[in-house]
């Protein structure tokens, strides 16, 4: 007995000492949190409710999205391997917690795993995923969902109501070290009710025009896999691949640390024959190889080592892979340009109105007229991109129809600067005030690849007597700087997901600008301090805006929300603390001939060609193309522009 224990300890030591991190996490003592989870349910009985099926409200109007058109093409062939570049090796296989939100996560979560229902990329209505059908009950502010009983995790365990209940426990524990998730799941939902193993309802605090989206886009977690979640969650789950509802799984032997990851199409995937899913995720293996340098990626693509390459940047579309490129002209590589319609990331200058001179509206208005975005768009982006109008473009009726960004106009800029007291040009042409203050601001950015944009703006702003000191930081340092509100002016954008209407609270509410923006009597608090770690990059605090935001959040009527959104956009425009930059109304891709796409290529609301996994690898065409390359046979060149959703400027 003693001997045995000694041997066991030795083995454990050996595993801990010599094994990889994965082995180390396997060697941790097994724990079971089931009792803890149940105790949590009991302690929050008003949130985690159980009802019998007889208590289900009557007169529910069920929807199932079954009539929505298929996603993908019936011509799609299964099989083959796609070779893809990965910018950085994933630092963890967890999908939550520190380091998890990297460029790899979309492959195992965002773009591949299933929610209860998904927005159709063409119509924005919901088509079913893990749900069979659903119903919104306005009275109880709940969405009722009947789950597809066929749904299983990739390890064969059925997906049931308990997994959804567990998901709420999981995202609310402190073990996962993810405060945003903690806050979201505590504040945005008011309860989950289990009626049976395959019938649940989830309630939210306020009704919205898109109440259903809050619930239907939830993705459950496998409770049986996460039963070891505890204090050491981060280490324990660092390299464990969770059973998934997605078509792609990751086998242990396919993870080559620091080099590559290979995803395999699950042959037993439960949704393989389900409508809206059957023509997608066609490729059998996805080989993701780490190539850090973008110039190198392009060379790898040209060699055929990777199959597709994003051509969004003008230099790639026009210079590095022009129509005259031998591989394009011979039809081996195809070029696609697809115009889409979706919320636009607001690229522009975010002015920190808390910083000295920038609190002066005249200075801000001057800056608006002194930044020559049109030149950047015309000459640097070659006219492909368009000028952004507001910080919330691309939300259909919710975006303001009439506001336009202010034009580059030296005279007007200088008039505004003059009104702020800057009336003389110094020896280098930069405006100065009577007391010798120069009109100079730091423009920081975390976008190394867009540093030339700032250089161009700097040159042009100097004409209006304004100096921009360009500071290009690495992405993390740049973001840290704005999050600590240390910036003067920051060049950045937010990634917006596909939502019906814009959010204002995060960026414009005074709660996110200062610790206490206003005194109780409504006056400006003279001792207020900027609040770090929020997305209010302008330190914008206007009482009128706050009131509108609160109304907007509580409003359930679509038209009233549109009116409020317009009103807030106008107020924001007048305040002039954001200089709208540019947006790209399209995406562009180059791919080898054997990668096939549906005839319409992509979808109205898609953000990229690979997002919905509708492409496939045609192995016959691959063999044919490779043979043709050797023998010199050519095909008609394929350069296609899909502009049916092009926005008229």
């Amino acid at each position: 007995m003693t001997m045995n224990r000694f041997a066991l300890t030795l083995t454990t030591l050996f595993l801990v000492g010599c094994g990889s991190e994965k082995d180390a996490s396997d060697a941790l003592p097994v724990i079971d949190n089931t009792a803890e989870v149940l105790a949590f349910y009991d302690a929050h009985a008003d949130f985690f409710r159980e009802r019998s099926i007889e208590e289900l409200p009557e007169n529910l109007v069920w929807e199932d999205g079954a009539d929505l058109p298929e996603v993908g093409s019936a011509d799609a062939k299964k099989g083959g391997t796609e070779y893809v570049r990965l910018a950085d090796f994933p630092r963890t296989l967890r999908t939550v917690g520190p380091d998890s939100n990297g460029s790899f996560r979309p492959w195992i979560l965002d773009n591949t795993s299933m929610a209860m229902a998904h927005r159709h990329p063409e119509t924005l209505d919901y088509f079913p995923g893990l749900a069979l059908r659903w119903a919104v009950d306005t009275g109880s502010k709940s969405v009722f969902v009947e789950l597809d009983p066929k749904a299983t995790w990739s390890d064969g365990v059925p997906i049931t109501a308990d997994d959804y209940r567990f998901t709420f426990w999981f995202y609310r524990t402190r073990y996962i070290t993810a405060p945003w998730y903690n806050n979201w799941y505590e504040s945005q939902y008011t309860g989950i009710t289990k009626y049976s193993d395959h019938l649940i309802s989830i309630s939210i605090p306020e009704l919205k025009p898109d109440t259903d989206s809050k619930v239907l886009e939830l993705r459950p977690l496998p409770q049986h896999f996460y039963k070891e979640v505890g204090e050491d969650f981060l280490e324990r789950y660092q390299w464990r691949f969770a059973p998934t509802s997605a078509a792609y799984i990751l086998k242990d032997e396919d993870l080559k640390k620091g080099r590559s990851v290979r995803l395999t199409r699950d042959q037993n995937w439960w949704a393989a024959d389900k409508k809206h899913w059957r023509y997608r995720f066609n490729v059998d293996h996805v080989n993701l190889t780490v190539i850090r340098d973008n110039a190198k990626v392009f060379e790898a693509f040209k060699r055929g080592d990777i199959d597709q390459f994003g051509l969004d940047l003008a230099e790639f579309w026009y210079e590095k892979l022009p129509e005259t490129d031998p591989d394009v002209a011979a039809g081996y590589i195809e070029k696609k340009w697809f115009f889409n319609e979706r919320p636009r990331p607001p690229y522009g200058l975010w002015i920190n109105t808390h910083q000295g001179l920038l609190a002066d509206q005249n200075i801000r208005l001057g800056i608006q007229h002194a930044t020559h975005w049109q030149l950047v768009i015309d000459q640097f982006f070659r006219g492909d991109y368009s000028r952004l109008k507001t910080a919330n473009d691309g939300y259909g009726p919710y975006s303001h129809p009439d506001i336009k960004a202010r034009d580059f106009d030296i005279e007007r800029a200088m008039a505004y600067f003059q009104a702020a007291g800057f009336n003389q040009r110094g020896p280098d042409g930069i405006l100065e005030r009577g007391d010798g203050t120069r009109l100079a601001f730091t423009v920081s950015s975390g976008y190394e690849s867009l540093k030339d944009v700032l250089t161009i703006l700097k040159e042009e702003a100097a004409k209006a007597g304004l100096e921009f000191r360009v500071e290009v930081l690495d992405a993390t340092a740049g973001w840290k700087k704005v999050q600590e509100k240390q910036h003067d002016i920051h060049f950045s954008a937010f990634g917006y997901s596909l939502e019906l209407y814009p959010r204002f609270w995060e960026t414009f509410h005074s709660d996110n600008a200062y610790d206490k923006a206003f005194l109780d009597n409504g006056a400006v608090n003279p001792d207020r301090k900027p609040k770090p770690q929020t997305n209010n990059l302008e330190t914008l605090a206007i009482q009128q805006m706050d009131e509108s935001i609160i109304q907007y959040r509580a409003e359930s009527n679509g038209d009233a929300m549109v009116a409020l959104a317009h009103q807030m956009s106008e107020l924001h425009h007048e305040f002039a603390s954001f200089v709208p930059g540019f947006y790209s109304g399209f995406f562009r891709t180059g791919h080898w001939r054997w990668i096939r796409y549906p005839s319409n290529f992509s979808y109205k609301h898609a953000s990229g060609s690979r997002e919905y996994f509708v492409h496939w690898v045609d192995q016959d065409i691959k063999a044919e193309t490779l043979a043709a390359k050797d023998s010199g046979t050519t095909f008609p060149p394929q350069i296609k522009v899909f502009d049916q959703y092009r926005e008229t400027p």
Partner: protein
Amino acid sequence: MFNVNPQTQKKLDRFRKIKLGYYSFIVLSSILALLAAAELLVNSRALVVQYEDTLYFPTYSDFHPGTDFGLDYTYETNYRDLATHFKQTQSSNWVLMPMVPYNPYENDATNAIMRPEAPNSDRQHYLGTDTTSRDILARLVYGTRTALLFAFAFMASVYFIGIVIGCAMGYFGGLFDLGFQRIIEIWSNIPFLYMVIIVFSVIPAEASIPARISLLLLVMVLFSWTSMTYYMRTETYKEKSRDYVAAARIIGASTRRIIFTHILPNVLSTLVTFMPFTIVSAIAAITALDFLGFGLPVPTPSLGELLKQGTANLRTAPWIVTSAFGTLVLILSLVTFIGEAIRESFDPKQFTLYR
């Protein structure tokens, strides 16, 4: 004219006889002289403007708004446009532009599209333009000037500190030597690159470009002087035990005299041997730091930044990488040739019976 010590005269003569080194020296000196006057050769400001019977020399003066020359804008005059304007209006005014009429910052896009363009003497882009249509020659000239200035300042500082401390350690020896050795060992184990990254992350953005460059220099010097002390220390130790030093001491020469007139000239050859390598490594270091994005702030012209652009556009714009790489090779070879020749001619061992 100069009253040169015959010993030194001999060394200089020897240097002159080593042809490769001597010509390299002349070429490098001319390059340095040209770079010092770069504003007169490569500049968007005119050398001379004659306007309404007045001569203007804008190169080194305050900026002239367009209104000074009858144009309708208040920002810096575009002298190239001014020249064409004068020509078109057939006025008696004229503009004399430098050889390369561009500054390293302005975007001069043909057909209003910014992209790298091949060398074109009609547009006076003699080495072409970079990815945002800036003149490569202009960026190269100003970038090289900064790099060379930086390298010489770096060498001077490192040598000064290294010689003083190394000599003192070698000459005084004992506890002083022991103590300083330990300090140096600890100091030289601080990773240099991390320090640069850390220091650069805390420099306020308001700092001007010269201030940033000086700070970079300071950090590099702080972490580079240690290696020099080792050589100096051993050499001084060696020389100190020689008979001529003992003789000097018996005569009653002061410590200062012994170090400066007797020991230093004898260890000079070691120092001189390292000089070109120090310069080369300084240029390489600042280029590498720039390449990695920790060097000079955007949009300061630099060799590293050009190399980076060049490697990213190897296929479509080979002229970027050729210019930057060619310049680096040229400068580094010149410095190496000169260094070899100096070592050859200044080695006092040529005239001794030792060794």
